């Protein structure tokens, strides 16, 4: 029950990230005049890395936080949850590339899309049940909601 393995692994990851981050931070200027925002490119489209990271984090956090909230989710993890999360992440990445928001804007877009993904999940879950009934596929998973 007490399975802390993941956290220790996470701690090891963090220990690896911190020195890299420390060097990255010392090289950045503190003011607008001295700082140069990192621009990433995807298929030739430029976008701010900060907004992208913020959007992806927010989207992931929203999906992770809401999506993992129900134990019903476990059985649909690979068939629905991951694809829907992937879609939400892709759409938020596309929005960041299209609108190039500031970090806060990226955060809000990502969070909004992550929450929207929950609605998509609900629809997909219902559809899956219906499809199971139509095609005679055994669906024993009746959500308790």
């Amino acid at each position, binding site marked *: 029950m007490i399975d802390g393995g993941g956290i220790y692994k996470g701690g090891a990851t963090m220990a690896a990230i911190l020195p890299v981050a420390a060097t990255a*931070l010392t090289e950045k200027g*503190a003011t607008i005049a001295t*700082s140069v925002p990192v621009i990433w490119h995807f298929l030739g489209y430029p976008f701010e890395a900060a907004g992208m990271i913020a959007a992806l984090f927010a989207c992931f956090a929203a999906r992770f*936080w809401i999506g993992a909230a129900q134990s019903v989710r476990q059985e649909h993890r690979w068939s629905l949850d991951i694809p829907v999360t992937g879609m939400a992440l892709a759409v938020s990445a596309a929005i960041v590339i299209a609108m190039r928001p500031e970090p806060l804007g990226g955060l809000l877009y990502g969070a909004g899309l992550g929450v929207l993904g929950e609605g998509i999940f609900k629809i997909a879950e219902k559809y899956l049940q219906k499809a199971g009934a139509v095609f005679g596929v055994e669906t024993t998973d009746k959500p308790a909601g």
Partner: protein
Amino acid sequence: MSNTSFAAQAVANGPRTIAQPSFEGMGWLVVINLAVMTVATLIGVMVVVKLAGDAWKHRRLDVWLSPAWIYRALGILFACGITIRCGAEALTLWGYDPRDPVMTGMFATIKRLFDPFAVACGVSGLMLYICSEPGMIEQQRKEPFPIDMWLAWPMVRRMLWLGLFSLIAAIGVVSTR
């Protein structure tokens, strides 16, 4: 600058730093603050939603001022305080942008407006705690003592993961903007 907002004027006329000037250019401090405030907001919302859902589900069982109700109300009050306080702070930290002084100033003012509510939540939680403490301790000294502490461990684990991810995101955002 024709804006009448003092906060916006302060941002517009202040040093054009990428984070708040009070960070004194220490990027690591920005990272820590950003990550901590973000994750505290997320965890706070998580706890409020969970406890409010529980309270609604068990509203017949845990009546007004029953020990379970008090215990849950304590959690809700503290979580609300943390959420409001850290959420407003996270908004100002994420939204700080000297190129947009009006928005930045507005976020700072919003934080000032919300802080008293956060304090009200926290202090009423403390009052409720102190008020119920003698009776609760009396209750908890009754046999059987042991409680299963690890029933909700998965949720705590989720909080820790969120913390890790928000730290990574904060590092990414601060080091690339």
